[in-house]
């Protein structure tokens, strides 16, 4: 293809995109079809300038750029249309979206208007990783029966595309050993939501946030998110600056969204608090709802019977290795007990970032050299994880902060009693039974709780009975409620 061909095809693609959006911005299809690309752009720009409705500005800018414009670009186009004279308004639109247009890697992109909800499953469609958020997405989204379109970002990062078949199976049919395949979808049609909705069950990556914020603020589409936690700002001392940075930018999407469904009452409380902080800038923020996550064991089936009692009790902790999870507190509490003569084995399951693993392994080695039985396992499969939950005498999870605390309910669903923190989402879960609550910042309190469960069979049996009697949602129920929260208008 030579340069002239490319230009011709690009111009034809632009005209095709403009024709698709023409009726939505107020230019009848019959009239639009008779116009060449230049006059067509002018006609659309005139129509948008006349109404100056933000959603129309956003739509026209999207069609021209072949990607979603940022807030700055929509503002620039709005001002350009306001100030440009009739006849040269098309130029104002073109210059307003120049940055996004230059980032679009395929010049022949077409667009597809979508009025069904677009569900952003970008990370799950492009990564095999499967903890926390991915487990929620993969257990929920495939169960939605309402019409919707699964979407992932184009590799150039300018807009949503439909999933490729392999991306779709990574979301809806994930299995241990599944692998992500790279997909070049830049030239596939851009999905353009019109009078529809964007659902964000994941926390979007930083590079997409400026475009999502613009969608939330201007496009007129309903935006719903799952609120997982505000850890990156509340426990900022335990995460990297980058993580806090990303979360603060994510809040630009949150504050212009319509609804946030939070995975615990505690998280809902966080987002309501954020809303009251947004008032300083004249923004009310989204409706904040709570929908606690389901309680199901790893692998889905509840254990028929608990593993037979073992000679040496096993104290288990599952969770990524990071300061916030407080593995160091558990290690210290265990050492307090071992020094008192208690007999039990301590096991940590979970991977983490290199710097903390190195530090943690040093601490574990130091304790092991004293002759105390402690082990760390990483890269554990779901079936081994389920077996570990069943084998454990006590499950400890005194995290400093959680949005929910999935490992707690996974342990409880297996019939294992749990020691967890006495505040926040973990205390919320503990109220449903089967748990001892402690101050996670007090090693002695953790030690005392472990000791009670090791030496007091009556207490242990009563917690096991409480755990068995818990009434949690199933994933299907959770998925149904989540869909209703996202789609039903909020008072």
């Amino acid at each position, binding site marked *: 293809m030579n340069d002239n061909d490319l230009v011709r095809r690009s111009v034809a693609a632009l005209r095709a995109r403009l024709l698709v959006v023409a009726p939505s911005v107020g230019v009848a299809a019959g009239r639009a079809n008779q116009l060449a690309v230049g006059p067509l752009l002018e006609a659309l720009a005139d129509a948008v300038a006349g109404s100056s409705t933000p959603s129309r500005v956003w739509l026209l800018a999207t069609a021209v750029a072949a990607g979603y414009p940022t*807030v*700055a670009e929509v*503002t620039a186009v*709005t*001002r350009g249309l*306001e*100030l440009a004279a009739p006849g040269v308004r098309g130029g104002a639109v073109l210059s307003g979206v120049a940055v996004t247009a230059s980032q679009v890697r395929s010049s022949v992109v077409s667009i597809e208007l979508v009025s069904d909800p677009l569900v952003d499953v970008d990370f799950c469609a492009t990564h095999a990783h499967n903890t926390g958020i991915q487990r929620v997405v993969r257990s929920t989204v495939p169960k939605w029966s309402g019409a919707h379109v699964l979407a992932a970002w184009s590799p150039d990062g300018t807009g949503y595309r439909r999933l490729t078949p392999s991306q779709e199976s990574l979301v809806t049919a994930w299995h241990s050993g599944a692998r992500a395949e790279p997909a070049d979808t830049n030239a596939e049609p851009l999905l353009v939501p019109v009078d529809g909705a964007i659902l964000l069950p994941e926390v979007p990556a930083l590079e997409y946030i*400026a475009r999502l914020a613009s969608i939330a603020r201007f496009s007129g589409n309903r935006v719903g998110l799952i609120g997982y*936690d*505000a*850890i*990156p*700002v*509340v*426990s*900022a*001392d335990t995460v*990297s*600056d*980058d*993580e*806090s*940075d990303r*979360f*603060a*930018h994510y*809040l*630009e999407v949150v*504050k212009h969204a319509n609804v946030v469904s939070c995975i615990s009452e*505690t*998280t809902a*409380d*966080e987002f*309501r*608090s*954020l*809303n*009251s*902080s*947004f*008032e*300083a*800038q*004249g923004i009310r923020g989204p409706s904040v709802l709570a929908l606690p996550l389901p309680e199901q064991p790893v692998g889905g089936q509840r254990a028929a019977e608990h593993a037979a009692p073992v000679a040496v009790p096993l104290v288990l902790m599952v969770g990524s290795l990071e*300061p916030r999870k407080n593995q*160091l507190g558990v290690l*210290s509490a265990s*050492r307090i007990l071992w*020094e008192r003569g208690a007999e039990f084995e301590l096991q940590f399951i979970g991977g983490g970032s290199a710097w903390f693993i190195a530090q943690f392994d040093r601490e574990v080695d130091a304790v092991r050299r004293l002759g105390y039985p402690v082990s760390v396992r990483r890269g554990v499969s779901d079936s081994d994880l389920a077996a570990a939950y069943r084998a454990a005498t006590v499950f400890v999870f005194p995290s*400093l*902060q959680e949005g929910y605390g999935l490992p707690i309910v996974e342990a409880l669903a297996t019939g294992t009693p749990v020691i967890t*923190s*006495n*505040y*926040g*989402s973990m205390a919320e879960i503990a109220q449903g039974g089967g748990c001892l609550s402690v*101050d*996670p*910042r007090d*090693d002695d309190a953790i030690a005392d709780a472990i000791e009670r469960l090791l030496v007091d069979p009556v207490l242990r049996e009563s917690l096991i009975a409480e755990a068995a009697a818990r009434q949690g949602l199933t994933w299907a129920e959770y998925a149904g409620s989540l869909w209703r929260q996202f789609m039903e208008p909020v008072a």
Partner: protein
Amino acid sequence: MSEDLGTGIRGVVAALLPGKAADRERERHRLRLEHSMPLPTAEAAWLMLAVLGRRLPTSEEVERAYRFGRFNGTRALVRSIAMERLRHPSRWFDAKVSVLRSAVLLDVHDSIDTHLLTGVQRLARGIAESWIPRGATLIGWSPGRTQLRVADPRALQAAKKKRRMARRGVVPWQGHYVLAEVVTEPERSVRTQALAQYAQSRTMLVGADIIPLTTAETTGPRMPGVFAKYLAAAARMSVVAAISSTAAAEYAGWRGMLRSAGIGGPEIVNVPIAETAGIASPDARAEAERLLLAADDEGTLPLVLSVGSHEPRKNHGAVLAAAELLWREGLRFNLVFIGGNAWSSDEFRMRLAALSSAGRPIQSLSGASDAILWWAYRLARLTVFPSVNEGFGLPVVESLHSGTPVVTSRFGSMEDIARGGGCVLVDPHDDRDVAAGIRSLLLDDALHDRLAAEAVARPLRSWGAYAGDLWRILVG
């Protein structure tokens, strides 16, 4: 009231075992510490790390040291802290550190370190002038941000200061500490956090806003991430003195989030910042008129003034767009921006240049002196300040106290100020509404006169009154 307990083991012993320990021999201090002291508390571990390790520790280091001391004893902890310092040649030359008990420390490091005089420095200076006579100590940080250093009490006044800070480090203990600026260095924030947790002191943060968290899209690169570390330090303070009721509400919202991490968080109090009228010196008038005023065939143009740096949050793009709409209507006025460039101000500069070359009476002054600024407020027909988020909005009150009405945003701290009179409120996200606000003050003389009268009637509040309120809250 402040008491220097000495350096090294001697200082630690004097702090942890109050009484007669201070004058004993070094070796006897050591013996006493190692043999008669119970297992250290986390606070004691912090103190030992800070004094014997000669670096203010992070909370993580304190926890590790506390656990080490618990399992291995005080003697092993003292030795391990000393060994740790000797193992790293970079730490051999760390200055000695002494324990300051019952001091009132005013941490204004950045203001000591700069020659600028913006709102933050005005605030630091205002507190210092009132607090130093009451016995407070001005402090800053060592170059590596690992030690607190006593600063020269005149460090905020002198135009040129050679030695602003002492060489020896200080560690606060059972005293008072106030942080009166935003810390953008994580190294400093994490150590301040541990200080607030473990120094057994009453600590206060002067809270201007949490904009980098709630309006991250308008802040400079990486700012939200480092600001989060600053907030993590704030979370452990005893009290946040917010500079306005809006800032207090923002901080209250943030504090509500801390519950999920089991952190009680600081008490939030609203201590409104000072409002002073600048002095427009007669000497500067001619220069100000030459710089700021413009004329057309009909005479001198009414001056529309915009004060503030050209960062996105100040919304100067909307001011430019609104002004152009009004010029096209045929309104007569000239527009002057006073303020420096900032991140993402390229677009503002380009559009200002475009309007200027199209013949619009518009200009931008940066680095204007205070004298010119105060004249600008006086010479202006109106000030326009449609910011998208402010902790306070200093230019609004500065203009009002100069008798000049203001067009500003219809929410937050700006709306709060406007309740006191003198303002026209607009939606800063709507260029036409901003234009309507400016138009009304340009064309409607009765409205202008009424708002100007309200503006001059606004009560003043001195820095002394502000600093006195802060002192009562922190010290009692």
